[in-house]
């Protein structure tokens, strides 16, 4: 090493001002996605570019960071619920019980402005997991989420068919559903709720919907929780994800996988397009939205869910309507 080269591994910190807060961004050229070459600087740039779209989802919810300080080659990342000790004073937080019956309270970070978003991206927080409920109504979820998890040989058209069936069955009882990619293999179908039902009620309704879907599409879906007993060409309907202290991947969050895919909110028209696809390449299709192309899509069209209509909805009328339709 010649005296002119800078010390290996450490690049100088860059100081930048976001929203009036001076942030010191370190190791911007550290590669987080070794197969794609995306760096921490790219991650920060991504979250800044989509800040306007992602912040409405993060703004009031306890956050769990999935961090990869040494890149996604490390097996599981660091799942951080407890806010780090070195968190700056201006970052908002909430102290609450992390789940029912947990032995101690946890102080969660709340990401409600661009400065915080940049600060956590600088911690290599690739994936942002948020609660189903927001502060202060932490006991009443804002949404039900169904994880549509396709088996390895499940064609994309089948996955799309199941998602559309969710939309239609829910529309049949007067509920508006939204859909996003998980950034992995599957889709998340989301039903926004008025935040006045407890988690047990939300879960019971989710079970009801999942069972209805299984009854409607018994050949395309499974409720079998054990992976070994699931057929590998159908869609597993996971409705048990909703719960106090449980989290879901925030819309527009990056996933720690090759290609840096994004959990992308979709217009239903997009899913209808997938329904007609003949190619079996589900995974590639589902990871089409990445850190590289999402900023441009957001700049052009904003958040697709704003157009699809995120509206908190009551359950009582839906249940009344479901009784004659689904009760058979």
């Amino acid at each position: 090493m010649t005296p002119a080269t800078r010390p290996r591994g450490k690049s100088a910190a860059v100081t930048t001002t976001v929203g009036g807060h001076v942030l010191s961004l370190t190791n911007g050229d550290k590669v987080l996605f070794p197969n794609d070459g995306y760096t921490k600087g790219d991650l920060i740039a991504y979250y800044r570019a989509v800040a306007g779209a992602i912040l409405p989802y993060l703004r009031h919810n306890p956050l769990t960071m999935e961090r990869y300080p040494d890149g996604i080659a490390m097996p599981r990342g660091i799942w951080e619920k407890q806010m780090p000790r070195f968190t700056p004073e201006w970052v908002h937080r909430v102290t609450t019980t992390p789940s029912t019956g947990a032995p101690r309270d946890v102080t969660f970070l709340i990401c409600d402005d661009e400065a915080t978003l940049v600060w956590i991206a600088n911690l290599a927080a690739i994936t942002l997991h948020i609660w189903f409920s927001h502060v202060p109504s932490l006991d009443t979820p804002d949404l039900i989420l169904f994880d549509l998890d396709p088996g390895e040989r499940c064609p994309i058209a089948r996955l799309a068919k199941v998602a559309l069936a969710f939309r239609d069955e829910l529309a049949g009882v007067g509920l508006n559903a939204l859909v996003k990619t998980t950034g992995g293999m599957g889709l998340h179908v989301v039903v926004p709720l008025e935040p006045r039902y407890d988690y047990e009620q939300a879960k019971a309704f989710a079970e009801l919907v999942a069972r209805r879907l299984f009854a409607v599409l018994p050949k395309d879906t499974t409720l079998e929780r054990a992976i070994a007993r699931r057929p590998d060409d159908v869609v597993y309907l996971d409705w048990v994800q909703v719960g106090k202290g449980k989290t879901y991947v925030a819309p527009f969050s990056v996933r720690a996988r090759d290609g840096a895919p994004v959990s992308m909110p979709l217009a239903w028209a997009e899913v209808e397009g997938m329904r007609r696809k003949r190619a079996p390449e589900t995974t590639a299709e589902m990871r089409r939205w990445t850190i590289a192309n999402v900023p441009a899509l957001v700049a052009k069209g904003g958040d697709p869910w704003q157009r699809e209509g995120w509206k908190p909805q009551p359950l009582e009328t839906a249940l009344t309507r479901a009784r004659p339709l689904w009760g058979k």
Partner: protein
Amino acid sequence: MAHAIWSGAINFGLVTIPVKLYTAVRTDDLRFNFLHKQDGGRIYNERHCSIDGEKVEYGDLVRGYEYEKGRYVTVTDEDLKAVRPEATQSVQIVEFVELDQINPMYFDTPYYLEPEKKGRHAYALLRDALIESGKVAIASVVIRSREHLAAVKPNGAALVLELMHFADELVDQGAFDFPALNEKVADAEKKIAKLLIDTMSVETFEPEQFHDKYKEDVLAMIEARANGEEIEAAEVQRPVATNVVNLMDVLQRSLAQSKSRRGASAADDDEAEPKSAKKGTTRKKTPAAKPKRKKSAA
């Protein structure tokens, strides 16, 4: 309140003070269960007889003492009680001594002694007399079929029974190679060491400041894992309403109940206002805990 582990009396001279004994320290160690690596199933311990290999239930167990290799005498709870029937019921005070006469290494586990109603006065009397004399009582007590040496000490408003080691339980210092007390140490060195002690000295010892950091970190790791774990493998299928109609009924009832609850408090509780989290407390714009100490050397 924890339940008493023992109930009996403090005896000294002709005085008898009925008391209950409670543990004064909680040891909440991390506890793990063993699972089968392949399928995550819980591992059970079964007791098997070394003679016939049969499984043995708890009710069929009896205590045995190996008095010579491979030879046992059996001993029942009654046998143990019969040896010293009165000892299982009392803290027998044998003498009083000034606290600083006892090497702290003898002290083992503290217990609280709580007086029964009719012993309150005598209890207070003994406690106050101990405080004023600066002495502690040395007593003999039997807990769980073992005789212990113990000290009874005043501590705040309580009398604390502190189990002590017997002299032959302490390991002799002669077994180790410690530098002799008169070993030569330069005054200048000592000065520096004392200076260091002074700079790190505190007025009062605050044990609340110290935590089992390792345990906290392990728990945080476990919680994070439990939170992030793919759910399908870990969760046991819970019993659910077998058909959709039952499920609808259950949910309908639940919704109706919360509706009537809300209706009852509707006067001061706006319907549109989400009920606030019981334990969730927002602390917006409060400063983060200050870092204890900056690293001095970068």
